[in-house]
């Protein structure tokens, strides 16, 4: 059996989700040009989301108020369901590094902030279900 050669840098507890079992989350800072400070929030880890980030109404309201109107508009698709979104170009801090990404804000309210594969693929993650903890790691050189 091959041993893991990663070093754990950070641990993040699973979060309780309304009406569902606990889910892995990551703490993020989100910044857009024009903002004076970053917005910090928890994001659900969603490996089914193709894009990097989907933002809640609360985050969208701050980004819009301080950074101005969306950069563009684009729809996300879930099967045959179209979800129109405002799109904002933002920087996201995951652990200790900042990454540029597109943040999708659905025009319908009620969505949680989700971190999708475009950003997840920049990290080493280990969701440990039985202990309800996500390890964030770096590769040992």
């Amino acid at each position, binding site marked *: 059996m091959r041993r893991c050669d990663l070093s754990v840098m950070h641990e993040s507890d699973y979060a309780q989700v309304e009406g569902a079992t606990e889910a892995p989350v990551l703490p993020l800072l989100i910044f857009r040009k024009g903002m004076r400070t970053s917005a910090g929030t928890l994001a659900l880890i969603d490996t*089914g989301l193709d*894009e990097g980030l989907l933002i809640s109404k609360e985050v969208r309201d701050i980004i819009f108020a301080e950074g101005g109107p969306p950069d563009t508009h684009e729809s996300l*698709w*879930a*099967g045959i369901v179209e979800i129109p979104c405002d799109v904002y170009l933002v920087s996201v801090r995951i652990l200790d590094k*900042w990454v*540029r990404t597109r943040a999708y804000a659905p025009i319908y309210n009620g969505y949680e902030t989700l971190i999708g594969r475009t950003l997840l693929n920049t990290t080493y993650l280990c969701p440990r279900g039985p202990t309800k903890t996500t390890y964030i790691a770096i590769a040992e050189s």
Partner: protein
Amino acid sequence: METEIVKKIVSALHDSPKSINQIAEAADIGWKTCEKYLESLKLLGIVEETKTARERVFSFRERRRGWFFPHARRIVGNKVERSEEIPPESGVEMPG
């Protein structure tokens, strides 16, 4: 449009592009009904049509980005809090 028929057509197109005949057979519906639904789905931008010399072939449009389980479940107690930390002028990565 009836949801069940749309589901059958979407399911039939999941693997690969197909002709109307093939879709109608897989979805167990009539050719005319199948064509009517495909025309509607084409108008909605869900599928696209390619015409060959012998038949009309339908497939999913590939431009879509999305996700499998669009859920609106919220994290209990999740709040947006402000942080003085902002990204450096340089050193912001672009994901591959």
